[in-house]
């Protein structure tokens, strides 16, 4: 289990009710399970359309990515810059 920081944006931030949070999680899948539990179904619905990054980029191992202490996991809804 690692102490990992979660950062969330746009509608994911609003449905989580916060911009950042802390989790003890072994993998990305584990962290997202806990986040769904912690924030509820509205957040889970946004998460279903989002991409999840680790330390600023898409992790090659996806949900199976093993997390280390200090890692930053980000939930990115579909982007709309410009």
């Amino acid at each position: 289990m690692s102490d990992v920081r979660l950062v969330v944006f746009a509608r994911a931030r609003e449905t989580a009710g916060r911009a950042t949070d802390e989790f003890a999680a072994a993998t990305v899948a584990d962290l997202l399970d806990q986040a769904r539990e912690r924030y509820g179904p509205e957040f889970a619905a946004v998460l279903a359309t989002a991409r999840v990054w680790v330390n600023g980029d898409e992790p090659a191992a996806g949900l199976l990515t093993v997390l280390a202490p200090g890692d930053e996991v980000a939930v990115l809804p579909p982007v709309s810059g410009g």
Partner: protein
Amino acid sequence: MVLPAPDGPLWAGLVDEPIPTEDLVAWATTPGSGAVVSFLGVVRDHAEGRTGVAAMTYEAYREPATARLAEVAAEARRRWPEVERVAVVHRLGELALSEASVAVVVSSPHREVAFEAGRFCIDTLKETVPIWKKEHWTGGEVGPAGSDWALGEQRIRAIGDAR
């Protein structure tokens, strides 16, 4: 957040203040430039199925967004080596109607390349840089005042993905 200094022929970043568009154009205009193409994305008064949009709020995953803006500019110069200079700047925070949210400025000896590279930059930015906008609209015939996140065009992709 203040715009960092140019990095050689590339100038990219996020700003919280109005985009210094005239500075970008002046910087891009090198002695070898025969064409300087500048594109501004500006806040408009309507969106998909919605009228009376009065303002827009932009937020970013700042560090990765800054890095990806620089990568977009660098990729444009890789694809079109004749390009002299490329500036890609996005603004964050609350913007009023007609304010510029994004600026792309490309210079090159001839216009074809400047247009193509500029088009590449704005299209790629929209798909690869972690930035989101929330529309704020006034009340009217279609309903009360409110705000909502703009529909993302697609899930964020990597800059290097084939298009």
